[in-house]
């Protein structure tokens, strides 16, 4: 630290901008290397509100940025704090969505390419995608903060339903688009089964973990599709009105059970 420092007059002129370019430049050069004089300049600053700028800077650095999905939810009409709650679920972290989307895209491609089994593959996989993503969105392993969450006043049912709807709002149109690529009469034959499976997973989550439920549903469905595929040549078997209505009934019944047992939604599984 050199011995020379700015005198009060010079400083005053600098801050008040009544000095010349040369003088100001000299002051500025000095300030670059003298923290003592900088400390004398700072209190005199009134050109901006330093405290307000600090508050904004701190917020920019501390407050987590809303993700794309969160912003989408806000646009969709959800209040800001709920959009954040829903979007924070692990399922929306991108990684899972990309994984599920990749599998679906592959399935659609297989079907589009005209491979005979491609269509079966798509029909097997497409209905499972929504229920898997729903399960990801609130399974305990995916959502590790479960225990402190459990005793907060926010209604568990509302949170799960919002997350499920948000997931479906993402997943269904995506599969819809992919379904258009798939040849065949009714690319939407998977729609009711998909909804049915989501409802089953929701209902089952009042007994077991959502992810386990989704795995079980997936296993059952894949087995069924495989059995049917080896017996009949055409996926039209799935399109029968009877089957579709059966899925509708399954969806309604499961959802009813889910609502009836919603008390069990946030309780811990008893250990031992």
């Amino acid at each position, binding site marked *: 630290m050199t011995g020379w420092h700015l005198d009060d007059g010079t400083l005053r002129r600098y801050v008040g901008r009544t000095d010349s370019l040369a003088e100001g430049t000299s002051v500025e050069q000095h300030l670059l290397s003298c923290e003592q004089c900088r400390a004398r300049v700072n209190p005199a600053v009134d050109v901006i509100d330093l405290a307000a700028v600090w508050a904004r800077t701190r*917020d920019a*650095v*501390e*407050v*987590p940025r809303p993700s794309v999905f969160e912003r989408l939810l806000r646009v969709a009409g959800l*209040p*800001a*704090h709920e959009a*954040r*709650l829903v979007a*924070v679920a*692990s399922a929306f*972290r991108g990684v899972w969505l990309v994984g599920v989307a990749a599998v679906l895209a592959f399935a659609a491609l297989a079907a589009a390419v005209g491979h005979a089994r491609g269509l079966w593959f798509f029909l097997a996989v497409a209905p499972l995608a929504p229920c898997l993503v729903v399960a990801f969105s609130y399974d305990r392993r995916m*959502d*590790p*903060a*479960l*225990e*402190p*969450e*459990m*005793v*907060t*006043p*926010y*209604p568990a049912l509302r949170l799960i339903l919002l997350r499920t709807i948000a997931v479906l709002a993402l997943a269904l149109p995506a599969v819809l688009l992919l379904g258009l690529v798939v040849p065949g009469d009714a690319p939407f034959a998977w729609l009711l089964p998909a909804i049915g499976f989501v409802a089953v997973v929701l209902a089952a989550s009042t007994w077991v973990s959502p992810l386990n439920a989704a795995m079980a549903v997936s296993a059952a469905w894949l087995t069924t599709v495989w059995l049917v595929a080896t017996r009949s040549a055409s996926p039209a078997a799935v399109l029968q009105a009877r089957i579709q209505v059966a899925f509708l009934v399954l969806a309604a019944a499961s959802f009813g059970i889910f609502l009836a047992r919603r*008390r069990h939604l946030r*309780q*811990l599984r*008893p*250990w*031992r």
Partner: protein
Amino acid sequence: MTASISLRGVGRTFGATRALADVDLDLEPGVIGLLGPNGAGKTTLLRLLATALPPSQGQVRVLGRDPEAPAERTDIRRRLGYLPQEVGFPRGFTAFAFVDYIALLKEWTQPAARHAEVRRVLDQVGLSNLVTKRIRAMSGGQRRRVALAQALLGSPPVLILDEPTSGVDPEQRVTLRTVLAEIARTSIVVLSTHQTDDVAALCERVIVLDQGRVRYDGQVTELVRQAAGRVWLADQPDPAATVSWRTGTGRYRNVAAHARDGVEHVEPSLEDAYLLLRRGSPENDPAKEVAS
């Protein structure tokens, strides 16, 4: 609305295991320590108090409300902070983001007020400089303090803490004790711990649990008095002692169930009294059997 918690005949069973039996308690504002070995039922009791579990038998009233009724349960949860034994943190979350998330669940809808409250509780636990650090990159003690911070949101009248100081270094434990003592002036703080010195420093009242039952419920000073005349120092471990161990001075501290004469007695500590209570309990206590 009363400012207290009461339990009457509370029991909790998991399948064939009885975790809690015949618990009768009345808790008032202040710090209440919960001591007991692993498996004694401390965590179960705390979960019950935090409305995370319903009892299998008996009645619970928190702040005059019944957790079995959904509307009242939500009311209780608005006034409750809970620190579980283990808290998982979502990947990629900073301390701020995590506490902010819990604050959202606690109905802090206005961002400005919420952010200010998040900063306040993180400051209370001494983490105001590490607000933007990823939790996964923090030490165990720092993570514990983040978890404690979420329980402190809103300065709740009921604070349930399961091993709040586990993994926290001694210096930080002193800070936390100050924070908890301050909160306990108007709130009910129930904390479970293995550290008898935390209880001794913080609590006036202590409850000792063993095998799901209350073995002792009263003043810390009273429990300590029970060990008077039963603790002494010697150069070698005394075979007549119930328990003895080497102290930092190189001498041996001995604790026995019966008072002894002619030995170098010392002031009993809470740890001595607790050990006495534990070791002194009879092997075949009929009260320990599982009720049919």
